[in-house]
């Protein structure tokens, strides 16, 4: 069951194929995911192997994209960086979808005090700008990958909760929910078994649009030094390392910027394509 039950799968696929941006995005995303999965096989050198006699090397036939300040191979670090980015993004998505759907669903379905409390909490979290929330989390947990995941999950769940709540409120008007209530089905089971499959499509669209933003936010926090720490490579911290030497050794910052730019463009194009395919009504919002 999806939001557009009338359209069989093949028609959805055809509609998606027609969106040029969506196809370009899909290709980029598939490549990034493959690179992330196969990272250790694809990387020409170990990502943390230092070579202090060969620092800031320009691209040559050994180090295709040059080396950084410790003589580590930039290409290998970029390849491992894909894995780190996707790992953070998928963790944040998984956490925020679970938390957001549960809280949003409960708020929408039960209403009353539960609704009031949850939505008040959402308002308060949204009063903190995301970078500020990350600073707060970093102060308590210290810097690191966990901090990024916790901070971004805190930032993202209110949006998912709000969306879920509004979707549930619409579904609540439907006859099948009344029927389930009359049958004596427990409320939470109605939410899980009956309502969730009907709101899965817009939630998926929201999640797919979120991936690009989460990757961007992870890179931003790592760029600020609050996120992923050495020796684990992160695209954001690689740009941070490369910026001061832009005049003499531009390769680190340049290649990292290109890789992260292309990746996020890919995810955003795919997200937009999916939105137009799965839920044409959302277009333009």
């Amino acid at each position, binding site marked *: 069951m999806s939001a557009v039950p009338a359209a069989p799968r093949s028609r959805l696929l055809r509609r998606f194929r027609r969106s040029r941006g969506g196809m370009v995005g899909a290709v980029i995303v598939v490549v990034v995911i493959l690179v992330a999965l196969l990272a250790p096989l694809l990387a020409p050198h170990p990502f943390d192997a230092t070579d202090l006699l060969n620092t800031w090397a320009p691209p040559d036939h050994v180090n295709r994209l040059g080396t950084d300040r410790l003589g580590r191979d930039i290409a290998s670090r970029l390849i491992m960086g894909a894995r780190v980015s996707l790992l953070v993004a998928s963790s944040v998505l998984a956490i925020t979808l679970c938390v957001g759907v549960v809280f949003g669903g409960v708020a929408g379905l039960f209403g009353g005090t539960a609704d009031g409390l949850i939505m008040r909490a959402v*308002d308060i979290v949204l*009063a903190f700008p995301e970078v*500020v929330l990350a600073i707060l989390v970093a102060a308590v947990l210290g810097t690191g990958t966990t901090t990024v995941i916790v901070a971004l999950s805190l930032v993202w769940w209110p949006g998912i909760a709000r969306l879920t709540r509004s979707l549930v409120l619409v579904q609540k008007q439907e006859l099948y929910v009344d029927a389930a209530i009359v049958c004596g089905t427990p409320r939470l089971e109605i939410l899980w078994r009956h309502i969730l499959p009907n709101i899965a499509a817009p939630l998926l669209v929201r999640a797919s649009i979120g991936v690009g933003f989460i990757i961007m936010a992870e890179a*931003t926090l790592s*760029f600020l030094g609050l996120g992923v720490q050495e020796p684990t490579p992160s695209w954001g911290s690689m740009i941070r390392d490369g910026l001061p030497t832009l*005049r003499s050794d*531009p390769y680190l910052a340049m290649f990292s910027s290109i890789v992260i*730019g292309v990746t996020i463009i890919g995810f955003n194009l795919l997200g937009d394509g999916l939105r137009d395919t799965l839920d044409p009504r959302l277009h333009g919002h």
Partner: protein
Amino acid sequence: MVRFLLRRLIGLLPVMLAAMFVTFAALHALPGDPVAVMLSDHSADVGMANRLRAEYGLDQPLPTQFLHYIEDIATGRFGLSFRFVHLPVSQVLRDSLLISPVLALASLAVALTLGVLGGVFAAMHRNRIQDTAVVLVLVVGLSVPNFAIATFLVTLLSVQTNLLPVAGWGTPRQAVLPVLVLAIPSAAYVARLTRTFMLEVLQQDYMRTARAKGLSERLIVWRHAARNMLVPLVTSAGVMLGGLLSNTVVVETIFNIPGLGRLAIDSIFARDYPVAMAVVLLFVLFYAVINLLADLLCALVDPRLRRGMAG
């Protein structure tokens, strides 16, 4: 109007209280004893430790400390810094306080100008090469993080051509790149909004009427069509200013600008948590005030909203 303002101001209270509670809890959930860190190699000196503990109020029960914390914030002192022992946080913040808001406001002005011009330009050349070019730039501007864009702008404008300084703060020339880099994502957003909006408006009947009257294309576009953008622009300007303000942290890091955000990050690394928390509170306050002002501005621009608020 006054009632609306009062209600919104009262609505700010729980948010600020929650922010104060959260930052206070964060300060006390931190691992390690701040007094021990401050004393470093004198940490065996019990007398000194007790004196410091009393000065920082750390010897009192937590509820009392919380009340003192609120009082300190209300008087604008924000407690004492851990890194600069005995120095009030307000002193540490003083020189950075205005940099971030100035950066954000300047970027907002640039983003609105560039965005509206770009969006109208694209809409006027619908489906032609100029339109496609603008849309491609928009995709890049909206998707690529601004520190990645900064890499290329700095290379182009500073390293290759020496047109602008690479980093620093104080002269107008040093401000150009940071303001531009900060403005790019918002400019792209405004341009997309403007383009969509203009494409819709240009198809309205009254546009055909204006054309039939023989008005010049420029008059039609700017006086009759673009004018309607005011309300959506003002609405999104408020949201954008909040985003710009928190993104100053990134720009301050790229260009080594001693603003509030940079100070907060440095304080985290130096374990000067009272300063970091003060910045968090200030940002939340700025954010809330900006949203409030944006709502008020909307009410001024759009009489329909004003009537809705009175009821």
